[in-house]
């Protein structure tokens, strides 16, 4: 197995069955995984913000644009849209209180789902929200997504 860590606003698409795409210490950001099970192509993107900001042109940073951008990269590697499904995790509320900044995790999740729905990509599994940070591991060989949090059993999606 070789692990590839995906940093904030970054993405990776892989066809290597030995590769595990991961995000370590995911809080209010969202980890979106796309998978073509027929061709065994996996992609992961580490999303920061719900809506895109003017004059910033990295589509992988925003939930509004990242699903489409990742889909295009998947297609470039030979994936077919009709076979692709999504798995998502993240979007936690790490700090509690009335600050509107604290809701960003939830807004990231909502916008990611909306963008996926508009593309017609089904969400096969999700483990989102809550108050705990996560580390997530996405296996290119079979599309399995492992979600780890401190003080909790590993969840497999």
């Amino acid at each position, binding site marked *: 197995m070789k692990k590839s860590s995906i*940093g*904030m*606003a970054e993405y990776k698409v892989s066809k290597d069955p030995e590769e595990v795409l991961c995000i*370590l*210490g*995911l*809080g*209010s*950001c969202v980890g979106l995984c796309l998978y073509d099970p027929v061709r065994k192509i996996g992609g992961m993107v580490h999303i*920061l*913000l719900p809506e895109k*900001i003017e004059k910033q042109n990295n589509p992988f*940073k925003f939930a509004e644009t990242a699903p489409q951008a990742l889909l295009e990269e998947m297609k470039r590697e030979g994936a077919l849209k009709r076979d692709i499904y999504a798995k998502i995790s993240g979007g*936690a509320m*790490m*700090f*509690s*209180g009335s*600050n509107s*900044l*604290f809701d*960003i995790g939830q807004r990231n999740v909502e916008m990611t789902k909306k963008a996926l729905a508009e593309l017609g990509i089904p969400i096969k599994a999700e483990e989102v929200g809550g108050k*705990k*940070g*996560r*580390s997530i591991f996405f296996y290119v060989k079979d599309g399995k997504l492992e979600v780890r949090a*401190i*003080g909790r059993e590993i969840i497999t999606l």
Partner: protein
Amino acid sequence: MGLSFDNLNDLQLDALREIGNIGAGNAATALSKMVNKKVTMTVPRVALLPIKEVPNWLGGPEKEVLGVYLAVSGEVTGHILFIMTVENALKLMRMLLGDLAPSDISAVFEPDEMSASAMNEIGNILASSYLTALADFTGLRLDHSVPSLAVDMAGAVVDLILIEIAKHGDYALLIETEFVEEEDHVEGYFMLIPDTGSLEIILKALGVV
């Protein structure tokens, strides 16, 4: 194009460092009063750094840390995050609470009311002390929100701040903070992240623009 952290000169950095030193002095006095024993604080380092490097400083994105967050409001706006590893947090609680401190690390993850309020209070004191130092220097009116606590993986605790920074800049003012009580010492990091435009207001008020 406004000022950003990546083009500060030495004079400006010195001014910010001085605020860090005075803030630490104020905070040490307040903490000593709170616990009724002598706590000193030093600022070994003031740095501007890409905040995405913070988890690596603390021992990696999965390193277990405690973070206290406060929002800054007033004539400048921004964010404060005080962050330390759970091992250091436990040491600090022992330093400040003595026998009332939690007995092991697991209690830091599920802090009882006493420990949680002690950590929040420390965040509060640090934030007030640094902001008072900043306000005294600049004459700006500054306020801060109530503190909010998170104990989790460093990457997850920091990403909220990173998200905020990602909207405009990429740098944070990091004031490394060392608490010393007799021979024991504890390290933590105090981060001040001004919003766009706020850094410029601060530097103007300091007379170093």
